[in-house]
């Protein structure tokens, strides 16, 4: 109970904030004879509820009191289980908070996917109502998008980046804590929306549908805007940390590739997230303030929303995938025991993706009724992204043919990533090509494509990275045999699930439907069975990670004999990371280079080893 005290206080203040900002204010206005729409009540309540939650969970005590000249009240020092349940500023604690929270949401989203596959196992209606299916589908979509955006940057980025660059913490530790503590209300709002009718417009929330559906949509909008704020704050934090807090000698061309990928992704989340917030706030204003941006009966223009929305949401897929590229290359390099091939070209590839990502958005809108002249240029820029992405593949393949492969679990997942992202990338060209996309748009072909890139690409890289950094983070070793079992089971079930989706999409199965024509029944049955197997494979992962954390063998400081800085400190690292700033003296991956070292660790007091 003592451990949970800050969280309980946060919940209490959050409820008070919600009631004051929502129902109480609404009742007051209505008593005075004014009108106060329920949508507005929900929106105001959830914003003030979030403020209350933040204050209660510790932001007021350890930070905000100072703004008013009051003395800060620090929580007892940061040791033991309690630090995971309070406004803690240690980047390693925040990284674990992110990882555990978003793995939980990942499993929840996965269960929702299995509900959908149950319904789609045969034509007709079985398990879910039509409306229920749309709500489950929407919730699955937004939860998985949130996981994909936050788990890499927030989880592994937070944990590993300061260690990898030889820093003591992030540049803005309290902003870092704020970014994390903004996310629990997001999850509560998304799930709580089910209590007020849910919402049925998917994660894209296209108006006018999102302006005429159940009030759950309002909670989704507020949740996504707050999540966006967290994402922007995180982006700024990584940019400043990587630019300013590198250890002496850690030049830009000595940065581990994962750090580069986090830098590139943070640029994107810093620049583009605001467009998502703007587009959703316009929908909210249409709903609660009677404005006419997109509303059909008030002369709105819905196509504009789709342009604004994708102006963020296409770069967003690179926020998801860039850190995955970095992590997969990191693992491939260490487990091939050779320096990353064409390092500078790969970094150029990351930055090329950042540069192009802002001018490709309208490939989501080829069939939206936008002006015809936009088709050709947007197709060209979209397909051009394959060139910088090709440089990432160059790095991976060059490293593989020059190395001596060490086929541990992280390496297996990284190799799986190469295959999955290859299929995801190739099928992306079919969606970028207008002549084929006019048919494939909004079908299961697209569903297959983005699951190959995000699940097969990002999540496989995430699993590679989780197994890789598991001994560092937990101080214990996972079970290698279960790890291999998990890889083969997940890899085969994943491909068995999503490969047939290209076929059903081509054959006329559109997205986001609870029912489909009878001739597609056989393949859908197969997909559902494979999906259940895929879901089952994650039980192995869960069992392995939980049991090993409790009673796995103690991990050495550097079980992978890896060269980068995070492996040169104990597992798990001490609160201050390094006894003294390390001196970086060589390239990050000096494998096979005689006499080359990446870094020299200082000892407390300043004298070198």
């Amino acid at each position: 109970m003592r451990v949970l005290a800050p969280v309980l206080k946060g919940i209490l203040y959050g409820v008070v904030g919600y009631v004051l900002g929502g129902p109480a204010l609404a009742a007051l206005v209505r008593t005075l004879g004014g009108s106060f729409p329920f949508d507005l009540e929900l929106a105001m309540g959830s914003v003030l509820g979030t403020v209350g939650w933040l204050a209660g969970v510790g932001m007021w005590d350890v930070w905000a009191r100072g703004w008013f000249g009051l003395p800060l009240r620090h929580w007892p020092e940061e040791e033991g289980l309690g630090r995971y349940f309070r406004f803690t500023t240690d980047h390693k604690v925040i990284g674990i908070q992110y990882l555990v929270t978003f793995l939980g949401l990942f499993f929840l989203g996965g269960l929702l996917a299995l509900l959908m596959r149950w319904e789609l196992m045969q034509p007709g209606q079985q398990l879910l109502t039509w409306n229920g299916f749309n709500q489950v589908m929407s919730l699955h979509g937004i939860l998985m998008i949130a996981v994909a955006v936050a788990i890499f940057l927030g989880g592994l980025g937070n944990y590993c980046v300061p260690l990898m660059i030889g820093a003591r913490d992030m540049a803005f530790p309290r902003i870092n804590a704020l970014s994390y503590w903004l996310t629990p209300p997001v999850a509560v709002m998304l799930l709580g929306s089910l209590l007020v009718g849910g919402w049925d417009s998917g994660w894209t929330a296209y108006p006018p549908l999102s302006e005429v559906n159940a009030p759950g949509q309002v909670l989704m909008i507020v949740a996504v805007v707050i999540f966006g704020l967290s994402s922007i704050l995180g982006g700024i934090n990584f940019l400043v940390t990587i630019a300013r807090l590198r250890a002496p000698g850690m030049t830009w061309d000595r940065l581990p590739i994962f750090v580069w990928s986090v830098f590139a992704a943070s640029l994107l989340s810093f620049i583009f997230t605001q467009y998502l917030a703007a587009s959703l706030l316009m929908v909210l204003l249409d709903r609660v303030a009677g404005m006419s941006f997109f509303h059909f009966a008030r002369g709105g223009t819905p196509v504009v929303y789709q342009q604004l929305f994708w102006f963020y949401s296409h770069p967003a897929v690179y926020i998801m995938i860039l850190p995955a590229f970095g992590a997969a290359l990191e693992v491939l390099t260490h487990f091939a025991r050779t320096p990353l091939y064409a390092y500078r070209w790969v970094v150029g590839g990351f930055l090329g993706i950042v540069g192009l990502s802002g001018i490709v958005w309208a490939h989501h809108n080829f069939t939206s009724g936008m002006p015809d002249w936009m088709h050709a240029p947007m197709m060209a820029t979209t397909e051009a992204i394959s060139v910088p992405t090709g440089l990432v593949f160059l790095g991976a393949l060059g490293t593989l043919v020059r190395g001596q492969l060490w086929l541990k679990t992280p390496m297996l997942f990284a190799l799986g990533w190469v295959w999955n992202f290859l299929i995801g990338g190739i099928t992306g060209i079919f969606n970028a090509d207008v002549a084929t996309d006019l048919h494939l748009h909004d079908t299961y072909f697209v569903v297959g494509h983005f699951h190959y890139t995000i699940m097969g690409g990002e999540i496989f890289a995430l699993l590679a990275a989780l197994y890789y950094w598991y001994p560092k983070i937990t101080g214990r070793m996972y079970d290698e045999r279960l790890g291999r079992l998990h890889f083969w089971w997940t890899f085969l079930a994943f491909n068995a699930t999503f490969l047939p989706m290209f076929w059903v999409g081509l054959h006329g199965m559109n997205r986001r439907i609870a029912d489909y024509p009878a001739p597609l029944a056989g393949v859908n049955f197969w997909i559902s069975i494979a999906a259940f197997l895929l879901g089952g494979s994650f039980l192995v992962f869960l069992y392995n990670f939980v049991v090993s954390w409790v009673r796995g063998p103690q991990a050495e400081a550097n079980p992978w004999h890896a060269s980068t800085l995070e492996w040169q400190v104990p597992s798990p690292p001490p609160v201050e990371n390094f006894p003294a700033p390390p001196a970086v003296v060589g390239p990050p991956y000096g494998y096979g280079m005689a006499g080359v070292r990446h870094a020299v660790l200082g000892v407390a007091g300043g004298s070198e080893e």
Partner: protein
Amino acid sequence: MRAGAVVGLWAVLSALFLGAASRFGAFPLGAAREAEVADRAFRFLMVLASPVVAAVVSVLVYALATRRGRGDPPEAPAYVPEHPAVPRAWFALTAALCAYVVYNPGLVGLAEIRGVPLGRLVARGRYAAVGLPQLPPGGELVVRVRASRWFWQFEYPEQGVTSRDLVLPVGRRVRFEITSTDIVHSFWVPAFRTKIDAVPNLTTYLHVTPTRAGSYEQSVDLRVQCAELCGVGHALMASPVRVVEPEAFEAWVAQQARR
């Protein structure tokens, strides 16, 4: 030796994949000129993808077969500096391939599917295929499509007919003028391989030339399916399509007009 093995493997795999891709024919029913263009583009993209997929697979197979290290961890191989020409060649090759894909099937397919010359692809024009060849008066069949939650309505203004089924004559270009009375829907006939959104307060256009008679009863690909999420009835928002001989179309019109 290393390069030789990878290139040899790549050549064999490419030949296999190319053979399969160029014969690929697992398409749904195609009943319009636009479907032929789209399927040709799809097949050609598979052909172009074959050597790329083969390259990655051969490197993976080669590395797993011959580069497995021994020991925990394996001895790091002595570092050999990279040859600077390799990344440059890779970059040039992928850029050239990408540029070609943009040209063909990209721009070429786009021009074909719209039925306009390449040069008119970026001509300024609003929501219609600019540069489409003019047909003599009466040559083009106009169908006004109205989407509502959750049904389709088809109006034939020249024939004075309104219908819930879409009936079209074979071999005549159809100009769909599409709009919505409420939220965004999308007009999609899988057998025609093309779709466009139905948007409130906006008319969108789609040109299709049916080439083959058939009906929904024969193939579910001949249906107007809503392809943009529109709420509860989205999955069920479909109307049957019938493509008939011109005489049968006239007879249908006459019969509808009498009702």
